[in-house]
C-alpha cells in the first residue's frame, strides 16, 4: 500500500486528463491492482473544505505517511513571493507544497509546469511561477537544488505538455512496487528510460527526413516537418513515437510539428513573432540542428540526401 497525494498549482489539469487516458494500468488499476491509495486528488477526491484540511494537516504532521507526492502545475509565487494568487485550502498553495515535500518519500513533478515552469513561466511570467526543482534550465526552482525527498531522490521530473499517461503510471507503479530505487535520472531529473531517445525515434516521416523531402505546408501526408514547419523532433528527448499517444498516433505522425515540450525551454523562442510553426534559419540552414550535428555536417548530409533521394520520396506514400 502506497499513499499518494496529487495536488495542482498553476495548472490546467491537462496532466490529470492525460493520466485518466491510461490503460494497463488504468487509473483504477493503480488503486485496485497495485495498492496505490489515492488520499486525495483535486478532480477525484471525496473530501471538501475542512475535511480536506484535516487530511493535509495529518500528512504534514506525519500522522499519515505520504509515500508519493505528485504535483501538477507551477508553484505560483505572485504577488511578491507571497503565493496569494494561488490559494488552496485557506493558504497559499506554495506553503502546502513546502510542507508536503518535507514529509514525502518520493516527490514527482508531472508535466512541464511542475518540472520547469512551462507556459505560465513564459515571459513575462506574470504569476512568478517556478517548477519544483527547475525554472526552465536553471536548477533550483521552488524547492532548491539540494532538495531530496525522504527516499533520497531529488524531484522525479516527468515533463511533457502534457506528460504521457504511461510515463506517469509506470513511474508510480515502480515506486509503489518498491522499485523506485532503480530509477535512473538524467541531468534534468527525467527518468532515462523515457527521455534518452528522441521524439523522432519511430516517426513515420523519418524516410522523408533522411531524403530531405519537406512538408512545406500543412495538410500533407508526405514530407518531413523539420525543414520548414519548425518541428523539433530531431532534438527533443521523448518516446512520443515509441509509446504512442492515446494508443493511436503522435503529433508528428498526424502532421503537427513537435513543439519540444519535454525540454525545459518549451515554449521555444518565447513564442516571439515569426517563430510559431516556422523553422528558424540562418542563410537557409536551421538555427537548431538535429542533436549532435554541426553546421558543416548538416550541409553535407542534406546535399547528399537530396542527391540520393529516390523518386518515390516525392510522392505520397501514405495514400488514402
Amino acid at each position: 500500500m502506497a499513499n499518494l497525494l496529487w495536488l495542482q498549482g498553476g495548472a490546467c489539469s491537462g496532466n490529470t486528463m492525460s493520466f485518466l487516458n491510461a490503460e494497463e494500468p488504468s487509473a483504477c488499476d493503480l488503486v485496485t491492482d497495485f495498492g496505490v491509495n489515492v488520499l486525495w486528488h483535486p478532480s477525484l477526491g471525496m473530501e471538501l473544505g475542512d475535511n480536506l484540511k484535516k487530511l493535509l494537516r495529518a500528512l504534514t504532521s506525519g500522522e499519515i505517511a505520504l509515500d508519493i507526492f505528485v504535483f501538477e502545475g507551477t508553484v505560483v509565487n505572485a504577488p511578491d513571493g507571497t503565493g496569494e494568487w494561488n490559494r488552496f485550502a485557506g493558504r497559499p498553495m506554495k506553503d502546502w507544497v513546502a510542507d508536503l515535500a518535507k514529509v514525502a518519500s518520493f516527490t514527482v513533478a508531472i508535466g512541464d509546469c511542475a518540472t520547469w515552469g512551462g507556459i505560465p513561466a513564459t515571459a513575462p511570467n506574470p504569476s512568478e511561477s517556478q517548477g519544483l526543482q527547475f525554472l526552465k534550465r536553471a536548477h533550483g526552482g521552488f524547492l532548491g537544488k539540494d532538495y531530496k525527498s525522504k527516499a533520497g531522490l531529488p524531484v522525479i521530473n516527468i515533463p511533457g505538455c502534457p506528460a504521457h499517461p504511461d510515463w506517469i503510471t509506470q513511474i508510480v507503479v515502480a515506486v509503489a512496487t518498491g522499485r523506485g530505487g532503480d530509477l535512473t535520472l538524467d541531468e534534468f531529473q527525467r527518468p532515462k528510460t523515457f527521455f534518452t531517445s528522441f521524439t523522432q525515434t519511430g516517426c513515420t516521416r523519418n524516410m522523408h527526413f533522411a531524403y530531405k523531402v519537406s512538408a512545406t505546408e500543412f495538410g500533407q501526408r508526405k514530407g518531413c516537418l523539420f525543414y520548414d514547419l519548425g518541428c523539433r523532433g530531431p532534438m527533443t528527448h521523448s518516446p512520443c513515437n515509441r509509446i504512442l499517444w492515446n494508443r493511436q498516433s503522435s503529433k508528428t505522425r498526424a502532421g503537427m510539428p513537435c513543439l519540444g515540450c519535454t525540454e525545459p525551454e518549451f515554449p521555444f523562442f518565447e513564442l516571439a513573432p515569426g517563430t510559431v510553426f516556422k523553422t528558424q534559419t540562418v542563410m537557409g540552414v536551421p538555427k537548431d540542428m538535429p542533436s549532435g550535428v554541426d553546421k558543416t555536417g548538416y550541409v553535407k548530409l542534406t546535399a547528399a540526401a537530396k542527391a540520393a533521394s529516390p523518386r518515390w520520396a516525392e510522392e505520397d506514400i501514405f495514400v488514402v
Partner: protein
Amino acid sequence: MPAAVQTLDISPVGRVEGDLDVRVDVQDGVVVNAWTQAELFRGFEVILRNKDPQAGLIVTPRACGICGASHLTCAAWALDTAWGTTVPRNAILARNLGQVVESIQSLPRHHYGLFMIDYTNKNYAKSKFYEEAVRRWAPFTGTNYEIGVTISGRPVEIYALLGGQWPHSSYMVPGGVMCAPTLTDVTRSWGILEHFRRNWIEPIWLGCSLERYEEIKSLDDFKAWLDERPEHANSDLGMFWRMSEDIGLDKYGQGHGRFVSWGYLPHEDKYNKPTIEGRNASLFMKSGVYDSRTDAHQLMDQSFTREDTMRAWYDEPSGKHPFDRTTTPTRKNTVDMEGKYSWSTAVRHEQAGRLEAGPLARQLIAGGPHGESWQHYDPLVLDMYKKLGGASVMLRHFARMHECVKLYRRAEYYLKEFRLNDPWYIKPTERDGRGWGATEAIRGALCHWIEIEGGKIKNYQIIAPTTWNVGPRSDDGGRGPMEEALIGAPIADPSDPVEIGHVCRSYDSCLVCTVHAHDAKTGKELARFRTA
C-alpha cells in the same frame, strides 16, 4: 425569532477542475446567501501579448487541459476571421469532429469521476438506492466507475488520429487543419465509436439502443421509457434519475432562469469564408439567449458581452466589452465579501443581464423555435424544464448527459462526410486585424477575441463558460448564476456540505481557465490582456 445565520466557508470545493471556494450563509438548515470565489491566477493573456499571432494555438489549449479542443477551436476561428482565410470543407469537418469527441470523452469522465461520487456520500445512506449506488459509483472501485472512467479515454483516440494527441494538440490552424487523414484513420475512428457505443452508451448508460433513446421528445416520453423495461430503469441513466428524485436533487439548484449559448459546429459548406458577423447563420447547433420568465428566445452575438469588475480583483472602469477593457488587476487580492472577492469578472449580456452557460443552456436553446430547418432542434429538455418547474441539480446534469447520443451522431456524420482526396488546408496570408472565435465546450459557451497589430498580438481575451457561471456579484449587486443557484440548498451536515458540492458540480465548473491578466511587476501596462 428567526434562527441564527451560520456562515460556512468551503475551501476548496474540489472536483470542479480548479480552485473554487464558496461561502454560504445557512439559516434553518437552508442556504440563504452565497459567494463563489475563483482563487487562481496564471495570466495567459499577459503571456500572449506581443507574441506571434499564432501563439494562441499553442498557449490557449493549455489554458484548460479539459477543454483544449474547445480552446483550439476558438483560437483557430479567431485567426480565420482576423486573417480572412478560406477554410476547406474537410477542415471544418475535422475541427468539428475533434470538438465533438472531446465532449463525448468528458461525459463519462465527469459523470463518474466528478459527479456521481457524491451519490455514495453517507448523507444518503437512508436512500433505497444507496447500496446499489456504492456498488456502482464508489470512487475507483465501483463497477461502473471503473468502466466509465476507463472508457472515457476512447473517444479522444479519434482526436489523436486527427491531431496526434489529446489533450494539447494544435492541429487546427488558420486555413484549415494540419492533418490529412487516410481511409484507415476513418475506419479506425469508426471502430472506436462503435466500441464506445457497444460497451458503454447502450449497455450501461441507456440500457437501450440509441434509436430507442432518440424517440424521447418530452418528459412524458422519458417517463414512459423509464417504466418500459427494467433495463431502462436500472441503467445508469435510469438509476441517476430515480435516485436524484429520491434524494431531492430535483428540488434545488434553480439559478436565474436565463441562459446563453454561442452555438457551435459550423456547417461544412456554410462557413468556408469565416467572418465574425456570418457565424450565427452557419451553425448546426444554434446560438441563443433564453429567458424562462418570458419564454423568449433570441440569437446571441459577441457584441452584447459586457464584464463588470467592481466585485472582482480589478481596479478599472467596469462594464466594458472585452475588446475595450483595460484590465488593471488589484495587486493585493484580499477577500472582502462586501467588496472584491474573486479573480473572475461578472460577465453579463448588455440587455439580458447575467446568464447561465452550459449544456442546460444549449438544450433549452435547442428547443427554441428560432433558426432554420437544417439547424438542430430538440424539444426534450425545454419540455422537462417547463414541466418540472425550472432548473435543478438533476436537470442540469441530465441535460449534459442527454447530449451524449446527439454528439455521437455528429461524430458519425463527420466521419461519413470527409472527402479524403480533397484539400484539408489552404495556406492563408497573414495580416493585421480583429478576430473572434467561439464554440461550446462541453461545459458551455467559450470564446476568444484577438487583435493583431504590426504582425503580433496586441490583445487576446477569453471568456470561458465558468466565467459566466462562477462570476461574483455584478455592479448592481446581483448574484452570479452559481451564487443564485446555491440559494435554497438544504444543508444536512454543516461539517460535510455535500449539497454545495452537488450544485457546483452540476455546473461542471472549470476554474482552471478562469484566469486573468496579471503582471506581477507592471500590472497597468499589461492591463488589456486577460483570460476570464
